[in-house]
């Protein structure tokens, strides 16, 4: 029997993208025209709530008119495995589940929700919040068995919405403060994700409170919830183990876990740097941090950027240099949220080492760039070539400029070595056809070639790395 036999409208993932335009709407709940609206999940003790109960405070759907109403969805849950830290993750499912209901559109989250119910669905019988409550309760319990009891209250009474709205705002703030404040040092476990292994077979994402997954979609809290709900799934717990290097971010537990999950390919990971043993890059990272040797700094380019970085490379090319689960010195696929973290490339100098990023990306993260650096980091609007980049950094006195002097000295030494070490991999064309290149046995002999005809059916020319 269908789970939703008693619900007058269909419920399914296929309604997720459904948009309800105002002419087709029966009512609007929340949305930009009302001040007070919210949705909130609270963890309770089992005895505090009644499982399966739906409470409606204020008029029910059938008694509403076609206009916008203040609105609140207040979900209370209980279960042995539940903890306050998971409230936010669970709350985000409200959006997903409401959208499964035919003729119900749910946008945004928290204090910003915007819901419409279609005329057609109300005509079909979706005239009470009781139905919506039932759907949410069943979906929550079905997908998250850690929820043992669930009670939902829908509020349309403006006074009551306002009252609970304040509670909700307080809760969001506390939650955010806790999340922002949570440091990697304060937890015993990180989370790992191997979802991307189907295209990056050796990639293991390590998710910490201060390092979002590369794709930007999974926080430490999300990881915690997912690992608890489905311990055998692609997201799992990592005992972080002994910290070997707090600056670079090397943890023995992480090394061990990554080694086992990457089939032995990756044995060591430094979480807070783009150099040495950087975190592997999957294929869906939001941005790439890449080393620019000419200025000894790090540039960042994000997925949506259509142009090229000062080194002439596009996101696509840069992504190509690191994607596929590889650990590439100087290239690092990252999430944008990670750029807001105090651990962001901390071992490399953090923002002090960032020398370029696209304007649109800078706009998104500018609240997290130290004030004195903000104008010293150019974007695509200011520089387009390495020369311009150098000049800009020098003029603005970017912190990397100080590193240059040291670099020049090193380079002189390196160059001398290079000449010895680098030998051509193939014979260049000019060498082959010049008489010198035909020396067959050097020294002591003179070779005379007469009436020689050489015919090469094909000649492959391979560029030699210089």
């Amino acid at each position: 029997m269908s789970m939703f036999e008693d619900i007058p409208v269909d419920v399914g993932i296929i309604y997720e993208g459904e948009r309800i335009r105002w002419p087709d709407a029966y009512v609007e709940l929340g949305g930009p025209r009302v001040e007070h609206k919210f949705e909130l999940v609270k963890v309770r003790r089992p005895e505090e709530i009644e499982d399966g109960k739906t409470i409606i405070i204020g008029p029910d759907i059938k008694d509403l008119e076609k206009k916008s109403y203040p609105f609140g969805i207040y979900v209370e849950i209980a279960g042995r495995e539940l903890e306050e830290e998971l409230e936010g993750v669970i709350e985000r499912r409200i959006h997903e589940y409401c959208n499964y209901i035919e003729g119900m559109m749910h946008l945004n989250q928290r204090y910003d929700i915007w819901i419409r119910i279609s005329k057609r669905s109300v005509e079909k019988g979706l005239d009470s919040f009781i139905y919506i409550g039932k759907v949410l309760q069943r979906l929550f319990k079905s997908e998250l068995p850690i929820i043992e009891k669930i009670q939902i209250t829908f509020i349309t009474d403006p006074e009551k919405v306002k009252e609970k709205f304040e509670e909700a705002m307080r809760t969001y703030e506390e939650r955010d403060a806790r999340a922002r404040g949570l440091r990697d040092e304060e937890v015993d476990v990180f989370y790992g994700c191997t979802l991307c292994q189907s295209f990056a077979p050796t990639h293991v994402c390590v998710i910490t409170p201060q390092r979002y997954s590369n794709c930007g979609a999974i926080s430490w809290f999300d990881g915690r919830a997912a690992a608890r709900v489905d311990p055998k799934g692609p997201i799992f717990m990592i005992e972080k183990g002994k910290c070997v290097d707090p600056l670079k971010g090397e943890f023995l537990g992480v090394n061990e876990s990554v080694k086992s999950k990457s089939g032995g390919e990756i044995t060591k990971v430094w979480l807070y740097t783009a150099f040495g043993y950087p975190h592997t890059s999957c294929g869906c990272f939001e941005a790439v941090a890449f080393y620019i040797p000419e200025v000894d700094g790090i540039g960042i380019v994000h997925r949506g950027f259509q142009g090229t970085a000062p080194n002439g490379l596009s996101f696509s090319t840069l992504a190509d240099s690191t994607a596929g689960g590889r650990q590439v010195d100087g290239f690092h696929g990252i999430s944008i949220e990670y750029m807001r973290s105090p651990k962001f490339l901390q071992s490399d100098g953090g923002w002090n080492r960032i020398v370029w990023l696209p304007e649109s990306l800078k706009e998104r993260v500018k609240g997290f760039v130290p004030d004195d650096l903000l104008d010293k980091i150019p974007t695509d609007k200011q520089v387009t070539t390495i020369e311009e980049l150098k000049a800009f950094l020098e003029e603005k006195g970017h912190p990397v400029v100080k590193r240059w002097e040291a670099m020049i000295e090193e380079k002189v030494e390196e160059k001398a070595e290079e000449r010895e070490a680098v030998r051509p991999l193939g014979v260049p064309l000019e060498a082959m056809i010049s008489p010198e290149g035909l020396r067959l046995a050097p020294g002591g002999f003179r070779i005379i070639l007469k009436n020689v005809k050489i015919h090469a059916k094909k000649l492959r020319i391979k560029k030699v790395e210089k």
Partner: protein
Amino acid sequence: MPKKEFVIKIKDLKTDIGILKDFELSIGKIIEEWEEEAGPTEFPTIKDLREWDFKLLQRYRPFYMPFCDVCCLCTFGKCDLTGNKRGACGLDMSAQQSRIVLLACCIGAATHIAHARHLLEHLIEKYGSDHPIDVGGINVEVEAPITRLVCGIKPRKLGDLEDVLDYLERQVTQLLSATHTGQEGSNLDFESKVFHAGMIDQVGMEVADIAQIAAYGFPKADPDAPLVDIGFGTADPTKPVILVIGHNVPPAIEIIDYLTENGLYDQVEVTGLCCTAHEITRYNPKAKIVGPISWQLRFIRSGVPDVIVVDEQCIRADSLIEAQKVKAPLIATSDKNCLGLKDRTNDPADAIVSDLLSGKTPGVLILDPAKAGEVAVRTAIGVAHKRKKFKAIPETSDIIESAKRCRRCDECRRACPNDLPIPEALAATIEGNLDELSSLYDECVGCARCESACPLGFPLHSFIVKAAERKLKEERYKVRAGRGAIQDVEIRRVGGPIVLGEIPGVIAFVGCANYPHGGKEIAEMAMEFAKRRYIVLTSGCAAMSAAMYKNEEGKSPYEIHPGIFDAGGIVNVGSCVANSHIAGAVIKIASIFARRKLRGNYEEIADYIHNRVGAVGVAWGAMSQKAASIASGFWRLGVPVIVGPHGSKYRRMLLGRKDRKEDWYVYDARTGEKVYVGPTPEHLFYAAETKEEAMVMIAKLCMRPNDTTKGRSIKLTHYIDLHRRLYGTMPDDIHLFVRTLADVPITMRDEIVKILEEKGWEQNIVPDPTLLPRLIRRRG
């Protein structure tokens, strides 16, 4: 780099180390190498990928449906091959059927390759062999994914493509030779050669399209390519109208250039049918598409076109006769389609125009595109006022008169590929009711076989067109001009969600217009899947049919859905040859996104696509041999193809057997273990009888062994939902697609869990799937 021979001759050279006398070094070919390492199968011969083909054919066994029971290809015959009989040469029925499929695919591949050769020669002559190949600027670095995959070369300039064509032409010759009496004897080897024909066909299409994109400046992988007019009613009949039909665009380009250079563009309408129509709108968004191939007769007979210019492929063989009926001069422009006309290529344009205007000749053959362009324009302007849109469409009174004389012999209906009730509809007109006749228009494929069959010689197709006159005039829609390739950055964005299964599938509606119930079914299917957040691609005639639909706001699908390669997009890549970008996109998912080596690495890329990329091709109106070879190119890549009911006349399907558990094992690349993955995808080539059957099958064939649990639950939801909506029941094979309970769509959990229990379902693991043992990774 030039392909020419490179020769050094040294008569007499004395140096410290030696003396050279009469030294000669010659090099046949110089190949500029590129950074990627050479793969195992560059320029594969007709047998090099046989092992991979057999892997697929073992799972998707050919199921033959003889369209003809005898073989009459040699003088031993006719040989009856029914039962277990063998012909005089020893061949049995299954080998004969696959041999005919191979012949069809060779014809298809040869057509695209010859098209590419013809086009490329023209473009090199006009733009030079050093003209760079740019198909998408900075957003497309992998400019020729199929060519790189198959040939292992990276073409930089137009001239580089000549080597590719040399290879393709050799392959077609070899393949064709295998169909000679007393050559290949095994049906499976014939099938492997069919796959080879399909593969080289894809390369040929790619060569043609990237060459024309680069040279003519067609939209370069542009998701916002302009919206252009399509429909019978979009051409302004008050102006001289030029109609171009076919696929090979140079003459049509020259028409547009001549008009533009002489400031005449606003005075003349340039309209097109079939793929040349796509190409002209890619060149100039003011040009108009009349419709798919099936609009040929109706548009010519309407008298609207003043001059008809035909190039090659899918052009009616009676186009000259039809043109004469409406007194429209015809210009043939391809040596593959001379129509018996006199070759006037070397005559002065003035003389040709004068002969066409005076009616001295009904048509000419001009093999110089520029001259054809000039003659077409000048003739159209000269003839328009004389013709006064003379039409070959009867009056209503003629229809009624004929209806009274009709003997109801039913020959027309029997001849109709769609079994349309023509006699009944005609009879209804006696009462003054033209609605029935008009309603036939929606399902008519425009073949006019009814007319040939009619013992009284009634122009029945024209009757239908007349009855539907108003509908025709209202045919005004928008289609997005063919955008060409998919950008590398788009691939990066959607690669993850596709491979993980969160974008439930990539569905390509391609092929001709031999539809069972009209083109609107294409539009309906495309809209339904775009609404469900699949990525929908279109090309060729199907791309046109997909446009011919309006919602309540009067918007057509391309206006409702964006042209991006992303969930919910409807993406017109362009003409037949632009089909290569569809294959190119799935290849790029494996190579750009998942970083599998591309160069000459066919087997591994195909294995990746087959196991991970939920792509399905739908050729709902597949008609031609080209459609057959296009489909076979997708099979070799492991991409399933669904055809409409007429597609069953391709003589064989490639059907999986979900009841044979042993067929559905893959290796887990992590451990080397063999893992049962269920019938994913269940078939490689499938003919659906109805739109409803096709839609359910599309959703089902998008499942892949690699789907994550979330992805699988999304794909299952669509499959089950469509099955319930369209058949009214739950599918009976759900248990085969559930690997762990997390695969079960949460909104259907209770009922599916119950089904699983009834079926004795057992939990399984989700492997890192491959069919190739060499891809098993060793544990370090």
